[in-house]
Each structure stands twice: as C-alpha cells, then as structure tokens.
C-alpha cells in the first residue's frame, strides 16, 4: 500500500507538467481553432453572398478588355501555429510517416485567411479584381533548437488590384 502511494505521489508531477498541458491543449485548441475557422467561413460566405463579385485569379492579364483606371499592389499576411497537441501528433507521424492531418487545419486556415483579407482590403478600396495572385509559406520559428518541429508559419498573399474605368 505504501509503495503504491509513493508511485502515485511520483506520478503527480508527470500528470501536472506533461499530461495536463497536452490535455488542455487538445480541449482548448480544438475549441479555439474551430471558433476561428467557423468565423472565417461565415465571413467568406457573407462576402460571396453580398454579390460583390470581385474575381481573384493568378492570371497575369486582366479578365476584361476595359480601360483600367488605377492599379495597386495589395497584400495580406498572417503567422499561425499549430497547438502543442497537434505538434505532438505531428511528431508521432514523423516517426511512422504518412499524412500529418493535424497540421492541415492551421495551414488551410492561414491560406484562406490571407486570401480573404486581401480580397476585403481591395474591395474596401474600390478595386474590381485582383490578378496575378501569389501565395507563399515560410517558417518563422522553431519549436526547439534540436530538431525541425516547426511551431510558426507565415502565409503571405499578394497580387495586383485593378479598378476599371467606369466611363
């Protein structure tokens, strides 16, 4: 009985500093990420249903042969990171190989967010479309010095916004 008590006593720090943080990361990470992804989906849907049109493309030429009044470089960027829980799952997948689904969530969010923000920004400035769009990803921080388990990525979207002449 005494031995069991000592073992349980020694397991308390393991629970407090290893199990509990990852459990909290799983619970609150899922909740927080679900919330921001749903909010973005609602904003995207509202914009699409607003009838704004506003095509975004990676074509190098404007879609209309109309005279162009003004053009401008527009861009949007965001840094995002997976949760501790997702990083741990990613670490496991690195060991066994295969698709790392836990990273997909935040990567997908980052890309969608920069494209949406860039579209909103150019619409607010009165532009009709964005052409030659580029989306790039880069690593901005590492989980630790010892390996390449990344914890922060930057996504940037940029393109040329065009406003057609109304006359």
């Amino acid at each position, binding site marked *: 009985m005494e031995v069991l008590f000592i073992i349980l006593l020694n397991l308390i720090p393991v629970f407090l500093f290893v199990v509990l943080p990852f459990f909290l990361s799983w619970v609150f990470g899922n909740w927080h990420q679900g919330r921001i992804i749903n909010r973005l989906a609602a904003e995207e849907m509202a914009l699409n249903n607003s009838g704004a049109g506003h095509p975004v493309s990676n074509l190098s030429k404007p879609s209309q042969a109309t005279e*162009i009044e003004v053009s401008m470089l527009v861009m949007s960027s965001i840094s*995002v990171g997976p949760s501790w829980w997702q990083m741990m799952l990613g670490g496991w997948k690195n060991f066994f190989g295969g698709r790392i689904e836990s990273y997909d969530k935040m990567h997908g969010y980052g890309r969608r967010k920069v494209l949406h923000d860039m579209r909103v920004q150019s619409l607010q400035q009165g532009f009709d479309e964005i052409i030659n769009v580029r989306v790039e990803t880069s690593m901005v921080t590492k989980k630790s010095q010892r390996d390449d388990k990344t914890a922060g990525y930057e996504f*940037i979207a940029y393109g040329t916004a065009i406003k057609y002449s109304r006359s």
Partner: protein
Amino acid sequence: MSQGMHLSNTETVPGKLITASYGLVQGSTVRAKNVFKDIGAGFKNMVGGELKAYTELLQEARNEALQRMMMDAQARGANAIVNVRFATSAVSGGAAELFAYGTAVTVQ
C-alpha cells in the same frame, strides 16, 4: 504606402505604358524576434491559431523592405516597380530576413 510610386506584381502596370527600364531593385531587412514575443508565442502555441506578435513584426519588416526597394527605384529615376516578389527566410534561430525585389521602370 507607395508614395506616388506604382507597384505591381505583373510584368506591366495595368493600363500604363512602360517607357524605360532601370533594372532590378531590391530592399531587405533582418528582424529578430524578442524573447518576450517568443515566450508569448510559445504560450499561444498551446491552443494554436494566429500568432499576432509575429504577424505584426513581419508586416512591419516587409513594409520596411518595400520602402527600401522604392527608395532604390526613386534614386534611379523610376516611377514604378513591376514584377514585385517577396521572399522570407529564417537566417538564424531567432531572426528572419524579409526581401522584396522587382524591376524599376518609368510608366506613362
């Protein structure tokens, strides 16, 4: 942002005619993340999502790189930069380089 200078990531400035080209112009800056932002981002990583401190830091740095590129173009007498591209790379454990480049031209 552009202070009268046309910026475009297409090969021309849409709706304008290029009359002269001055070659490649560039601007770069290296920014280090401070330890407090690193600690904050570490805690934010508990739930994941946007790392606002890094977003702002990199946006400021990219604007500075753009300003330097535009100063380079202005010094050559250009009024536009076409085919603008951005590159970001981690140069050491805690620093990132933001690089902007393009071709300086004069447009009518």
